[in-house]
């Protein structure tokens, strides 16, 4: 069966510090991968998606970046965090048939102080 792991689960960082959130998928190959952000009481905002190694599309201009160094690894990064980067970050992979069904990880809660 397929599983998706995200870490760390919780992170408190000062403004201006770097960020690295990791996501790995098991039990599937060449999945489409996604990074979303969820602000309190708001819907999911797509940040990045990837259809393959080193193939990243950015949906929202921001100080975040994403990388996919391996087929089943997706990393969200920032060189300098802003207060507005606080939120709940979710990694997801798309179901086998690429029908738009997304399967999410447990999420990483980031607080920037």
């Amino acid at each position, binding site marked *: 069966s397929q599983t998706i792991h995200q870490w760390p689960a919780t992170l408190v960082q000062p403004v201006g510090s770097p960020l690295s959130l990791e996501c790995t998928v098991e039990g599937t190959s060449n999945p489409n991968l996604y990074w979303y952000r969820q602000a309190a009481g708001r819907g*999911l905002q797509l940040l990045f998606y990837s259809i393959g190694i080193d193939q990243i599309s950015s949906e929202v201009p921001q100080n975040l970046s994403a990388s996919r160094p391996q087929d089943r690894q997706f990393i969200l990064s920032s060189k300098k965090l802003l207060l507005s980067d606080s939120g709940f970050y979710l990694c997801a992979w798309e179901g086998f048939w690429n029908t*738009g069904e997304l399967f*999410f990880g*447990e999420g990483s*809660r980031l607080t920037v102080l």
Partner: protein
Amino acid sequence: QKEVEQDPGPLSVPEGAIVSLNCTYSNSAFQYFMWYRQYSRKGPELLMYTYSSGNKEDGRFTAQVDKSSKYISLFIRDSQPSDSATYLCAMSERDNAGNMLTFGGGTRLMVKP
């Protein structure tokens, strides 16, 4: 106006009640509709996936799509305290388009024993 509207709630019901959760949308090109359930501090999990209009049933859950009214619903029969969560609707214009999902803001449901 948001592309997908969802009442944020909270919606509080007694155990055993029938719950109706709804989303309205403005884009008539949406054809694929999903409902996700999200427990507190967890990632969303896919509950129901439907294409075009009509009903789909899965256990205590029924998803209904009315494209003429641009309105989708999720019904939960015999609601249980374990159903307490936030329910997110999501939709897209075509399949093979996980990057084009539009999410509602979510409705928080509380089922009281």
